[in-house]
């Protein structure tokens, strides 16, 4: 496989929470490159720093030190280099959260199209795109339901649709298939794979789900905040 552009380039990133006795070193000198078209899994025991790393890549969390480049642009080097981090997230990054975090006052369809709305899509086109994604993820029939009425798996698929809506090139997923049965988990992996190839995107997914390990190009292991070779 020929490798595409480097979409995520993390160099010497460290992150600790708290100071003194309460200090927790969640990440210690992480180096990671992810190319367009790659689907990689982030593995490791609980507390090893997986979520922390995703948040750093997603520009939600400032690392203590190190450098982060996204899609060729340096965004962090000891400090944030861009002031419009939210616009960056809207355009480049799709999040699939561990807790799905849908907006309770919007329907499934609106939860997806709101992203496109924010990105400036005409509402008709946004709705059509939302429907298309929901249909593909087999939750199209629940498009008009509010999140409170969705099952865990349905809500998770709506959240995935939201993450993919604006065709981001970097998709960060924290346990994307945890709430899904294995058939649907395979479907989501198919979708992520298709996205990676067609849109030249990269996917970094935290997972414990051994059934889908073979669907990743690379498995990256974290232990005590360090990347370890397997």
């Amino acid at each position: 496989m020929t490798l595409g552009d480097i979409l995520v380039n993390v160099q010497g990133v460290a992150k600790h929470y708290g100071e003194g006795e309460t200090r927790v070193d969640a990440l210690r000198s992480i180096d990671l490159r992810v190319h367009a078209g790659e689907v990689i899994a982030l593995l490791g025991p609980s507390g090893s720093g997986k979520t922390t790393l995703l948040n750093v890549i997603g520009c939600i969390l400032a690392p203590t030190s190190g450098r982060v480049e996204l899609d060729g642009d340096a965004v962090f080097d000891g400090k944030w280099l861009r002031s419009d981090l939210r616009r960056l997230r809207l355009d480049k990054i799709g999040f699939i959260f561990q807790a799905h975090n849908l907006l309770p006052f919007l329907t499934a369809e609106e939860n997806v199209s709101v992203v496109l709305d924010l990105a400036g899509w005409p509402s008709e086109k946004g709705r059509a795109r939302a429907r298309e994604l929901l249909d593909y993820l087999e939750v199209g029939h629940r498009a008009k339901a509010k999140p409170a009425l969705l099952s865990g798996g349905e809500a998770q698929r709506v959240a995935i649709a939201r993450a993919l809506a604006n065709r981001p090139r970097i998709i960060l997923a924290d346990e994307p298939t945890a709430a899904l049965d294995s058939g649907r988990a395979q479907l989501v992996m198919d979708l992520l794979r298709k996205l990676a190839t067609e849109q030249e995107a990269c996917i970094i997914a935290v997972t414990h789900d051994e059934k889908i390990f073979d669907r990743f190009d690379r498995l990256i292991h974290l232990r005590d905040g360090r990347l370890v070779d397997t």
Partner: protein
Amino acid sequence: MNLAIKDIRHGLFRFVLTCFGLGLLMTVVLAMIGIYNGLVADALAVVKAPAADIWVVEAGTQGPFAEASSIPADTRDAVARMPGVAEAGAITYQTIEAAHAGQTLRLYVIGFEPGRPGGPQRIAEGRGLGTSHFELLADRKTGLVPGDTIRLGRNRFRVVGLAEDAMNSGGDPAVYVTLADALSLQTALDPAAARVQVARGDQGIRPATVAAVIARLEPGADVALLTATVRQWKHLAALSQIEQEDLLLASVVDRARRQIGLFLGILLSVSAVVIALIIYTMTMEKLKQIATLKLIGAPDRTIVALIVQQAMILGVSGLGIGLALILLVKDNFPRRVVLEPFNALVLTGIILVVCLIASGLGVRAALKVDPATALGG
């Protein structure tokens, strides 16, 4: 996609309830404004009723409303003869209690000379006073109707007509009688000692006195010149209509006005705090959703709009409900509640500003929230 409205519709029942609560608060604020206006309007009603240009009263007094005034009844002839005066009338005021239909009525008795200034401007029902004795025109609020009779002093008066919005600054409804009847009523209600004197035949000692003489001027007549002329009679003073109105507002209504004004201020402050609290709480409950919005890339503009729009919708609906309620109940108040469109407009302005400031608090909290708080894991 309007997030503010979507969110409101999601929790519609609660939002409507909140608006209704705020609406009740606004009703109280509007009622207070209305009562204040009513107080001023009522107080001025008695001064405005005769449509006079100048008031001639006892020297050294600010009569006849702010202070008691007593001048000889024949002053009217002297005033009427003055150049520039079109017509003049003597007038008396007294408050008495009378029994009617098993109840005690507090009445403000106005004595005037039929055919001269001093009577009601409009007869709402029945006819005006004739020259015969013991006829009476009553304000509708007295509950009297034409044909009723009521005992005032030693005599029974017959109600021949009804007037509207005539009362003193205390809110006692007015009745009009002829000056002659009013004068004999005055005598009948004099202290016992005086009555004894009258019974002895000392009538001549006390010339008939009235509270004031009012005059309407010919077009183009100089009010200032006329009042100055009147003041040359050492026992008389004169006030223009405007001075009389200002005097009444300053002396009689002022304290009540400050009282209500202060209360209104407190009420508005309470409303402001309540609105601020509601909006702040509404925002705090949505913090996690706001964090999610930030996470998916929503700009501050979207988040500020969400909060400010909800605050405005809350404020405007509360005000609307308040207005609707006060218009429904205002006629059931024992005293007049007068609301001008101007008052509603000013209140709308105040409430919108309060909502804006209140949303400022919520906006601050919302803008500070870290998008990472949206992440559960």
